[in-house]
């Protein structure tokens, strides 16, 4: 049992990224502020990046495939967040709040 804990392998990184993924999903569900939902989405994206990096380190000897996928994934996430921020800014300008419950009511 102690050997499993002390010999750090793929499973440990997957467990860490899985927990991060679950906390991010929980944040998306329970948050009421749009910006915090965006931050939770970023956390989910980062957990996926860790997942890819772990698989790249343990399964792909050249590191190239995993790094390329990570690179494109991070870029796409950044663009996605930028577009979401612009939309939220517009929502704020028209509504004066970022609470999803209030936005749903209107």
């Amino acid at each position: 049992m102690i050997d499993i804990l002390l010999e750090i392998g793929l499973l440990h990184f997957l467990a860490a990224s899985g927990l991060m993924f679950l906390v991010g999903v929980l944040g998306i569900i329970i948050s009421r502020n749009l910006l915090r939902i965006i931050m939770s989405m970023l956390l989910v994206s980062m957990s996926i990046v860790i997942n890819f990096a772990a698989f790249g380190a343990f399964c792909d000897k050249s590191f190239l495939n995993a790094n390329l996928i990570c690179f494109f994934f991070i870029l796409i996430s950044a663009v996605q967040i930028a577009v979401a921020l612009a939309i939220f800014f517009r929502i704020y300008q028209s509504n004066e709040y970022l609470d999803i419950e209030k936005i749903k009511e209107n």
Partner: protein
Amino acid sequence: MEFEPVSFYLAALMLLCSTAGVIFAPRMFLALISLFFAFLFTGILCFMLGAKFIAIFVFLLGGLVLCPVIFLLMKKINRWNLPLKLSGIFKIVVSSVVLAVFGGVGCLFIREEFSSSLFNIFNYVTEKSQDSLTFSGHIFPLHIVLILVFCAVVVIKGILAVSADGEDCGD
């Protein structure tokens, strides 16, 4: 690949703490600081895995670009010190339980169908995706997971819609 257990556990713990900080921070700027540290420790974990360029890229793009952009945006609309409120405790508990249950169901499914091996999953997907004629036949066990996921979405959505009635909003 050899890793120092102490440094791994420390980095993972700090990462999870900063992740929790983003979700449960009472103020906007505290959530942003937690997000910055989440990027930092994600970079550290990637660095430990040998993906140095990805680590630097994550930290630069996330920590040094996205976090200041969000902060400046909040500053512009004078909401950088905004008090953040979560949903009701009932919603948090129910969401956590539903997520844990479906996480457990997913783990059990992987254990039963793929003998707890992620490599078996990738082999399965690779082999079956090349078998175009009988792909729908091979995909049969996965429909249970899809149905469970849809059920989870419907249940969470329904519970959230019911519990949202009558609550006053923070911002």
